[in-house]
């Protein structure tokens, strides 16, 4: 009742959330590949990119999971295709 720390179940939920982000992304074959394809399609409408040098990673730290995409841009299009 007088504990100042967060209840331990909140930690359990938060840890599980992060663990499963990773587990599911790794296990589900093709998920990241498919995501990569769709990102390329979406971005290519606006900018010309070096497709072969794109890096897409799922990173997790103690407190958060993030999708990091490094997409080298060749040029910005004048008008949206």
């Amino acid at each position: 009742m007088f504990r100042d720390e967060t209840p331990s179940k909140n930690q359990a939920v938060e840890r599980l959330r992060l663990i499963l982000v990773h587990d599911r992304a790794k296990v589900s074959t093709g998920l990241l590949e498919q995501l990569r394809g769709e990102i390329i399609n979406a971005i290519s409408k606006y900018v010309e990119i070096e497709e072969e040098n794109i890096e897409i990673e799922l990173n997790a730290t103690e407190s958060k999971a993030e999708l990091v995409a490094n997409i080298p841009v060749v040029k910005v299009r004048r008008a949206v295709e």
Partner: protein
Amino acid sequence: MIVVTSGKGGVGKTTTVANIGTGLALRHKKVVMIDADIGLRNLDVVMGLENRIIYDLVDVAEKTCRSVHKALIKDKRLSNLFLLPAAQTRNKDAISPEQMVAIVDELKEEFDYILVDCPAGIERGFDNAVAAATEAIVVTTPEVSAVRDADRIIGLLQDKEIYDPVLILNRLRPDMVRKGDMMDVDDINDILAIKLLGIVPDDEEIIISTNKGEPAVLNNHSKAGEAFRNIVRRMEGEEVPFMSVNGEPGLFGRFLKLLNGK
């Protein structure tokens, strides 16, 4: 044919199979329980039938015994409940998924329910147990490791084209949930997002009933037994409200609405 699985060991698969099987038989269904945990058989002990085993699953697969019926052990309490025990001295490779399918095919004409107790893990034993399954019950406890493994198993079941597994949350401790030291049903439903079949409270009676070899579902004073009776009723299509474990009647009502709204 329903497979009872979990990924992680020690979360209560065997106890669940014994109680659901017995519970369905109490409702006059003809039930056979198959122990697919070759090498580490336990369902016979939980059922109190360990002294009656003559033939086992591997004998049936290898046709050492003339028919699958020769290996079926009739329960000592209910005449419409049967056990097909696992072999104790062999390993998971002793049978193949195809043999499992053939055995289940032979049994399914005759039985209303075929329940398979799946071994822990995701290797051959899992493949065998799931091979003939049309439905799956995933058992988990409210712990990070068990829920993580349950999530993995749900993914693997999808790969085997079992898309709608249902969940039993086992060994819930209302006192710990109230203190915020245990994940509750809502937390786990959020994470796993599959339909809930039942919540089984942690109950000393389970240990006592395993000591005796009598499933808790037969005991009218056991909280876990009551939970298993409710699970069986839901399997039979009845709508039974979920047991209130934290003294807030509204919580499970809301949860039910959530489920029905799906």
